[in-house]
């Protein structure tokens, strides 16, 4: 018997209308339709979502961990970029 691993897909789920899809994990599947079904069966068994996105893992472009100093440290000492200096009206809801 030949063992061949199916391609990997990343799964994103929207918990309810109005919020963004969030990465929840990955599944193996031969094609997009089967990946969608697998994602539904693995990640929405307890009413976790109202919408699923799946993306071929191979299509994701990731930052290189070796670049983290240049990429992320410059942002750490700039507190003035945080919007913490004004009141957010209650009517805005979650941001």
């Amino acid at each position, binding site marked *: 018997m030949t063992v061949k691993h199916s391609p990997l897909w990343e799964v994103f789920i929207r918990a309810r209308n109005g919020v963004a899809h969030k990465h929840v994990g990955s599944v*193996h599947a031969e094609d997009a339709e089967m990946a969608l*079904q*697998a994602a539904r069966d693995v990640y929405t*068994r307890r009413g976790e979502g109202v919408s699923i996105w799946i993306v071929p893992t191979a299509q994701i472009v990731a930052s290189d961990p070796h670049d983290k100093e240049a990429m992320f440290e410059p942002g750490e000492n700039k507190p003035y970029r945080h919007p913490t200096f004004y009141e957010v009206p209650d009517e805005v809801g979650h941001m």
Partner: protein
Amino acid sequence: MAQADSKFVLRLADDHLILGQRLAEWCGHAPTLEEELSHANIGLDLLGQARNLFAYASQLLGGTDEDRLAFLRLEHEYKNVLLVEFPNEDFGYSVIRQLFFSAFMHPYWQALTSSADAELRAIAGQAVKEAAYHVRHSREWTLRLGDGTEESRQRVQTAVDDLWSFTGELFEVDDLYRQMMEAQVAPDPVSIAPTWRETVVATLEEATLQVPTETWMQTGGRVGRHTEALGHLLTELQYMQRAYPDMAW
């Protein structure tokens, strides 16, 4: 408003309990983790439907414990169709068995949502959505196995040929069933047949599989005459209740 006969409700309950148990047998044995969960999910959907039906049957019988109905009857007292007790064999058999069963149950539940029996209408309302997904899942797998490799095609064709003669029982009408039809509790299977055939034939053809021409059909489940496979299934299904009578979680 008309009420269902408990014997009719038990037939439906047994179909779902037994197939649910069959799917549970894939736990720890499915080809991939994803399919393990899919089969467990479908099995649990069926068990949930069975539970609603057993609860209703026990109510119709004047309060018999639903666990006794599910776990403590003898082999010939189960009235499920033979199709659902057919062993898993391989993944292809399980997929085809599910396709044949769910392609029937989806339109059947749909019809039951306008049953004269209010309780059955309520049970059907939830079950019809679950059955729609069961059709989708088994259909997609049939397409990929049939139109897959030489081996998968040959295996799944064998499953289709072997299971075909177990599909006639889904459409059987006996005296009890005729009464349920006359009371407008249950739909006429003749009205379900075109939808079933359309789903099954379209799926098999798209999967490049041969649709069997065999017209001779197995029978016996509805009167408690079962294949050898059911006894083995029941020993596992009933083990806990037999070893620890009246146990509860």
